[in-house]
């Protein structure tokens, strides 16, 4: 149960729930779901808002263990992010790099920084101005999922694109 609750707190998963709903799949109603937020499917958030970015675009990507390469699914998300960011140029952007707990503290600070940089470089390659982008690493200090197994670690190995002031 703890794991399910953790999943639904994750905005990326909320976006997934929303997309499934459009496709006609019944999604189990859970607290904090897109439906509860009054976001019945994509497009309910004001276009160009931070909420629109988080819910409809997806603010985070995930990495393989001890890896900093941008996976194919992450490339799709980042391409969507770049398109959106290039459309709404009023936002400054901070990319947070995170690691799971299966590494030592100092190494994971460095690993989170590398993930943030890889994410930044991808967005720059997709036309987002480098001057809008800052990075920060939280290492393993800010997990979103808190169980002690693989389902959580995979959610914690992430880079989160945050719009000025909108934390993760």
């Amino acid at each position, binding site marked *: 149960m703890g794991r399910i609750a953790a999943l639904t707190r994750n905005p990326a998963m909320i976006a997934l729930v929303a997309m499934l709903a459009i496709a006609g799949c019944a999604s189990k109603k859970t607290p904090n779901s897109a439906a509860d937020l009054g976001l019945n499917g994509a497009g309910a958030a004001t276009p160009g808002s931070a909420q629109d970015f988080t819910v409809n675009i997806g603010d985070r990507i995930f990495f393989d263990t*001890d890896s*900093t390469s941008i996976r194919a699914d992450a490339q799709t998300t980042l391409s969507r992010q770049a398109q959106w960011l290039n459309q709404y140029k009023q936002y400054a952007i901070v990319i947070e790099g995170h690691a799971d*707990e*299966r*590494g*030592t*503290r*100092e*190494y994971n*600070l*460095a*690993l989170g*920084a*590398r*993930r*943030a*940089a*890889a994410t930044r*470089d991808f967005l720059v390659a997709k036309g987002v101005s480098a001057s809008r982008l800052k*990075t*920060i*690493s*939280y*290492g393993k*200090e*800010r*997990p*979103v*999922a*808190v169980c*002690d197994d693989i389902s959580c670690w995979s959610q914690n190995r992430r880079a989160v694109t945050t719009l000025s002031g909108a934390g993760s």
Partner: protein
Amino acid sequence: MKSILKPLLVVAAMAMGMNGVATLPARATLELNVNKGNVEPMPIAIPDFQGGLGAQISEIVTADLKRSGLFAPIDKNAFVEKITNPDAAPRFDDWKVINAQALVTGSVSKEADGRIRAQYRLWDIFGNQQIAGEQFFANDANQRRVAHIIADAIYEKLTGEKGYFDTRVVFIDESGAKNARKKRLAIMDQDGANVRYLSDGKSIVLTPRFSPNRQEITYMSYESGQPRVYLLQIETGQRELVGNFPGMTFAPRFSPDGQKVIMSLLRDDGNSNIFAMDLRSRSTTRLTNSIAIDTSPSYSPDGSKVVFTSDRGGRAQIYVMGADGSGQTRISFGDGVYSTPVWSPRGDLIAFTKQTGGEFQIGVMKTDGSGERILSSGFQQEGPTWAPNGRVLMFFRDSAGGPKLVSVDLTGRNEQSIPTANFASDPAWSPLLE
């Protein structure tokens, strides 16, 4: 600079020899060889010290010696002789029958000026003689310190090695849910007593380390937004940024002479390299320049070399280089990922965290990478720090929802948990004050 430790006045060994007690021999006949493979703890009797604070002090001495794993304090209920005059020779035969190898007697009293006066005598039971005796004066705030100093003296006399009980530990106090952990800089005695907070918990703070004179800490904080390395004067609370770099600085440690801080600096390409900064001139020297993560640098005690972690070969491994960055050489070749290397204060070993087979291990290896020995294995544990005598390591282990501090000696057989009110991580052991 005022030291917290200053009020303690240590007075040299007392002249003993009253009541026909044998005078101090040239060397102790009673000695515990701590370099044997399997050390049998020495049975030692420590009756309550005389005086109002006596029992409190002797309890701390007893706990220190017991936790070292080298001594087996005998149950007080087994004692035959009741010590009434700690300055008089004991009835050695009464202690022989309970197989006490050593006996510690002592007393604690209040001086007219308010200070406490503590004295002890160490007796070699089978040698029928006193082998040590000292007295100390301290103010009230240093009661526990007096006990630790006595424990150190006994440890040193009986093992021939420096003690480590009169030391402190800086660490990160952690409280709250795992996904909203509050992290505070804290300092305490090595046995978990006298905790004091050094930060307010508003910002994430990590990896504190002592300066050689025990008066400063270098650590990493998120207080400015971007994580950076700071210096903190423990007594005054004065803080300053170490260097003015554009990106993240992390993994700081002092050089053995206290003149430099060595740390990692994030490169714009996302990799991290090692730099040393001279604290007086503020000049920085680049020591590594690799397209890799180079981090967790730690100086050898003579300051001539640096051990660090790098993933330049694919996965994180341990490397050694000259203090100027020359001759970077990989030394770990075992099956797994190695990180957080820390050079022993004796110079002979490097402690590390190793990840292998889904486990985190704390181990030591010689400085050329040979002779690897694993001292402790667990699901999640990391970050060893050395006791100043190079015989015990402290690290942190995550279990039951959060990290706690654990110590283990070089045999790997004596593991002890260090009591802390909250979760605790990133311990760093202080040096001894000379």
